[in-house]
């Protein structure tokens, strides 16, 4: 009786830990680091449908043969349940070696001998598959199955909850059409970058980008093609930047690029590279190839020292309007010495 109560207490603490975890990896860690307190296992494994991530928590005494057996068996069971053929090369394996509390004192040849593998189901949909793995035969009984099914039920519910929260966060951050950051997130990021640059006296550049003659594109080809033009430009912008640069949809057909730790001359080079890339990369509209062009306005600290991020944006915007005035498809940069509306123009 005492053992049953102890097991129920352990089960309760595992479920609580899973329930208290917000992020997907925390949910897996909550289970992976505690299940050996309840089950006589040498490994816990979980394969997730999303991104095909395979997590294996192993006791540090387990050998390569055992781990390979766990990996293969988890994939096999997952495939059986989902009916999907899995290419093992597409699976990202994450192995964590831990010291498990082991209650079984028998001898073993270190191979996988028994398992329980339950699908993680939420609202009738498979989220993945979780397995208890042992190196001796018949390691699991009906009670172990009952306990593990409660744990996997809680894991599936928490994972679904985490996915919902994560997608809500994404909705708050990303523009749904282009998948770039949205204006609200841009404001937060730029505020932070602006403060950092000002305090640490580091350079910071921004580039305002606008598609030339966007309205005629919409009018001539329709709004669906207009949307495709925005996605096309978003993709070029993402592909033209360094991994620490930030690009966002500013609104309509305007985009704003933040270039941290970048001086004006380098920002202009990047802006010109983007302009050329857009100019030479056609957008397919039916059988037609449409060549878009863009105008860009660059502003940079310390070439200017704006009082606020709003003023900083205004400077980039002023340079952008200058590029439009000069005939479009060009990069202009804001120069403070020729204030108030002073600018440099980089010719096509």
């Amino acid at each position: 009786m005492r053992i049953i109560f102890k097991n129920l207490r352990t089960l309760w603490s595992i479920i609580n830990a899973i329930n208290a975890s917000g992020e997907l990896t925390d949910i897996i860690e909550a289970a992976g680091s505690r299940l050996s307190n309840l089950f006589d296992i040498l490994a816990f494994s979980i394969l997730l449908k999303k991104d095909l991530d395979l997590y294996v928590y192993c006791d540090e005494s387990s050998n390569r043969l055992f781990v390979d057996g766990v990996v293969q068996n988890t994939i096999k069971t997952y495939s059986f349940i989902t009916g999907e053929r899995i290419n093992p090369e597409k699976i990202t394996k994450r192995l964590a070696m831990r010291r498990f509390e082991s209650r079984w004192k028998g001898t073993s040849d270190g191979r996988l001998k028994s398992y329980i593998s339950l699908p993680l189901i939420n609202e009738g949909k498979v989220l993945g598959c979780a397995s208890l793995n042992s190196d001796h035969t018949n390691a699991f009984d009906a009670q172990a199955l009952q306990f593990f099914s409660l744990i996997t039920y809680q894991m599936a519910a928490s994972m679904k909850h985490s996915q919902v929260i994560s997608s809500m966060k994404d909705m708050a951050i990303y523009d749904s059409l282009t998948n770039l950051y949205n204006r609200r997130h841009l404001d937060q990021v730029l505020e932070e970058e602006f403060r950092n640059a000002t305090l640490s006296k580091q350079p910071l550049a921004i580039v305002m980008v606008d598609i030339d003659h966007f309205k005629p594109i919409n009018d001539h080809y329709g709004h669906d093609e207009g949307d495709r033009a925005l996605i096309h430009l978003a993709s070029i912008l993402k592909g033209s930047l360094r991994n620490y640069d930030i690009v966002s949809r500013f609104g309509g057909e305007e985009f704003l690029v933040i270039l941290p730790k970048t001086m004006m001359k380098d920002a202009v080079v990047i802006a010109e590279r983007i302009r050329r890339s857009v100019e030479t990369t056609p957008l397919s509209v039916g059988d037609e190839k449409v060549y878009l062009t863009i105008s860009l306005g660059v502003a940079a600290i310390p070439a200017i020292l704006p009082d606020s991020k709003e003023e900083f944006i205004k400077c980039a915007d002023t340079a952008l309007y200058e590029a439009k005035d000069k005939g479009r498809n060009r990069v202009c940069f804001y120069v403070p010495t020729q204030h108030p509306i002073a600018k440099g123009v980089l010719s096509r």
Partner: protein
Amino acid sequence: MQKKKATANLDLIDLYSRLLNEIWGKVSELIGEGLLAFLILLTIGRISDKFPILREIRVFEAGISLETIKKQCQDIPPEDVHRAFQGLVKNLFNVFTAITENVINRELFSTVLPKLREAEKMISR
């Protein structure tokens, strides 16, 4: 003749209804109704091309209902009805084996085997 076939089918379906609901009772205690319902529907989905009659099985939180099949099976030979349910039970056992080795099946053998034998007897009569 037609009436005899219909009666035989109803008896057979009653037997399988009791069997499936006993499986439901025992296995749902082990893995919960939600997961069990998923596994039963998965199994039916995989063999329903071979045994279309199984598509009429209804799975609820309270158990399994074969009432729709009862209404539709009058023209089907009892042997075919038996084969369809036999296929379902066999494939369900395979699914249980794939996920828990023998943990679930151990709990079921004593219930399932006598009823399958009873069904065989009904057919051979």
